[in-house]
């Protein structure tokens, strides 16, 4: 079999991305009796447990800019972000009718409250607010989290009618370790040669992992990496930027494309953090829930949805990302009305100011249509950085 080209791979990912009926996940479910699908929202859930239950974890990231939201708007005031309303739209229009459970991670009060709405609107579907610790002591936050995961494991055992063994969990951890390694590799590759792996392509490739089984997604990642490395693409004199604030509601694909057209190479971002939340491999020996909990407490990404207990550490993840990727600036792209992102932003900006890292900020919504202002702003930013470094 010949190796697929980047174009072929991206075409496949694009189909998955645009398909709001989640046909791939439906087909996976129908392929075998008794299969179940568990949806989850941003920012992080331990997908390993769902996988170990023999179920498919399915990332639900709102409706994007292609879906018309009619019902969802009746549930939310104008001053609330878009993702909960388009998620409700997906629900009430039957696009999630094959989903057997929904997880609402503790990212903010909007998703928190949505968990209760879901229970009322879809009472026959298992749904859970997935609480995580915001304290990172082993005996305190660690124990709480291990117990929360144990409860979730029990729920899934009941839902699926099967025991989830430690062996199955360790096996799933192993598969997700591999997937995370590949994604890190892809991010590293993009940081080195951003012209070979444009941000919107990387986005689509990672996004495919939210609907495909992890085994299949890892193959896709390998294929894309191989193809992107093999293909020679023209190098532009773009400015290298880290984009942050994209951790929940999704930017339109056009936004990512516009940044590059405006002269920015995206060398790091916080999109779909669930795929990179745990840094490094989780051990595959011993008590799997304990290991997942340890990884969460001590080796996980920083983001606005998390409390940073240490003042000196606040925002340093961003400075490190800039250094690691050789970025020249940071773009704060936050969802309108997003509390976590927008309340965090001034603190992160202060940290960047101290580190002499230039930055700009704008807001978007998943259905933003007009890219011109963003393109202009990003273009000016890229130009000014180039001017500075030339001076």
């Amino acid at each position: 079999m010949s190796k697929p080209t980047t174009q072929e791979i991206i075409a496949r990912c694009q189909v998955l991305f645009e398909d709001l009926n989640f046909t791939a996940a439906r087909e996976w479910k129908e392929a075998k009796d008794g299969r179940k699908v568990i949806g989850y929202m941003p920012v992080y859930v331990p997908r390993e447990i769902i996988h170990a239950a023999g179920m498919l974890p399915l990332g639900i990231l709102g409706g994007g800019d292609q879906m018309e939201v009619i019902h969802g708007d009746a549930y939310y005031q104008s001053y609330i972000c878009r993702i909960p309303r388009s998620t409700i739209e997906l629900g009430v229009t039957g696009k999630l009718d094959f989903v057997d459970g929904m997880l609402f991670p503790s990212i903010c009060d909007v998703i928190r409250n949505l968990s209760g709405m879901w229970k009322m609107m879809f009472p026959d579907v298992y749904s859970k607010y997935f609480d995580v610790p915001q304290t990172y002591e082993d005996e305190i936050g660690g124990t709480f989290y291990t117990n929360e995961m144990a409860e979730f494991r029990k729920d899934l055992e009941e839902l699926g009618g099967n025991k989830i063994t430690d062996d199955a969990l360790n096996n799933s951890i192993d598969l997700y370790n591999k997937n995370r390694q590949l994604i890190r590799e892809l991010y590293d590759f993009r940081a080195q040669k951003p012209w070979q792996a444009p941000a919107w392509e990387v986005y689509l490739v990672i996004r495919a992992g939210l609907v495909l089984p992890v085994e299949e997604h890892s193959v896709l990642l390998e294929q894309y990496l191989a193809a992107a490395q093999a293909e020679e693409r023209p190098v532009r004199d773009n400015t290298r930027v880290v984009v942050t604030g994209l951790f929940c509601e999704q930017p339109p694909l056009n936004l990512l494309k516009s940044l590059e057209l405006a002269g920015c190479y995206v060398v790091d971002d916080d999109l779909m953090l669930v795929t990179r939340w745990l840094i490094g491999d989780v051990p595959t020996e011993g008590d799997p829930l304990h290991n997942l909990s340890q990884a969460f407490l001590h080796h996980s990404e920083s983001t606005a949805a998390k409390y940073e207990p240490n003042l000196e550490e606040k925002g340093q993840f961003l400075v490190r990302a800039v250094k690691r990727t050789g970025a020249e600036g940071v773009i704060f792209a936050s969802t309108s009305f997003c509390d976590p992102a927008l309340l965090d932003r001034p603190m992160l900006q202060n940290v960047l100011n101290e580190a002499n890292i230039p930055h700009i900020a704008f807001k978007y919504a998943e259905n933003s249509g007009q890219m011109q202002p963003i393109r202009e702003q990003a273009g000016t930013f890229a130009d000014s950085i180039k001017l500075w470094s030339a001076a």
Partner: protein
Amino acid sequence: MKNPAATAKQPVEVEKDASMIKQKEMMAAHFDRLTNAKENGDKVASTFVPGNLNELIMCFDMVNNLPEVNAIQAGLRRKSGAYVMEAEKSGHSEDVCTYVKSDIGMMAKGNIGPNGKELPSPDVLLLSYTGCFTFLKWFELLREQYKCETIFLQTPYMADGKVTPNMIQYMVKQLKEDVIPRLEKVSGVKFDIDRLREYLRKSAKAEDDLVYILQSGKKVRSPIDAYFGGIYYIGPIFGAFRGTDHAIEYYKFLRQEVDQRIAAGLGPVTPDGPMGEEKYRLVVEGPPNYTNFRQFWKMFYDEGATVVASSYTKVGGTYDYGFRHDADRPIETLAEYCLGVYTNRSLPMRIDMLVDYINEYQADGLLINSIKSCNSFSAGQLLMMREVEKRTGKPAAFIETDLVDPRYFSAANVKNRLESYFQMVEQKRSSTGAAA
């Protein structure tokens, strides 16, 4: 008719019942204690209203400073608008909670408290993360400014309508192994559990009376307004007085006042004097607007509308659902207290509560005041409205304002909505009357 523009300004004389005067004096004394803290050698702990651990803070001889209360005071004094703008000028988004921005703007402008004196910098930020995500970021922002010790206490969300042993254990561990030892360190005072028990006992006493007062709204011809008046009533117990003799005395006094009004068949006292006929009985969900508080209230009492129960008066504890601070389980009780506050309750629980209120308080319907910048309260309120209507058969209405940002208070809009709402109530009455 009075000129509305004239009433919007502070009128010379405002009618108050004795308890309101007493309440004001208590709050003023508290602010004096705060602004004199450094002189008096008192240490200051900043913390939030929902999940505030006043009894614990007092065990360490510290004074409690509540940034939300400061924002409310700034709102009532019409200073919050400028503070919010100040914060936005310095880079804070127009989209986020205006309490935070009022606080940050106030800090930038000298941190002047309602008594005209400078509020002290906190010695410790006790970040009790209960029922609102913004709290996390708010104290991260303050920590950046004050660079002081920040103690964190996470309250898990009551998503499934129940408190699990894991939640309690988590909180108890945090309290025992982290919060208390660190408070000892900051204050230099050794923790004494018997002292805590004593305060908790006092809390429970005042809580009994508070519940009696709030539940007096069940009387047809309610002696209280449980939203606008209720805000005065909850002040001491939600703030710095829970666990003190002052709170016990205040609620005893208030209870007597309420009893007298019941005996005399009187309604609530409004800033314009005793309320006239009780035409409408409402349940209100959501915080009020503070920048135009009196004007807002007037729109209700001018129409004969009394709020007989509200959810906002439960943000600092859901005592009417039976919770009391329990001196026999001093640490667990603090955990249970935090877990139970209104905004930490799941949406279905919040709906149940509003439905109960409408039924038990014989209300004509529900009014939601949706706060533009408060996701904790606001996200989901439209569904709540529909559900409550469906389950009670009573009409519900929706208005939108903000807590302390005057730009989002449109008097004409609110008034219009209220008027049509009252018409709806009338129609509902005549149709059910006709059917009966």
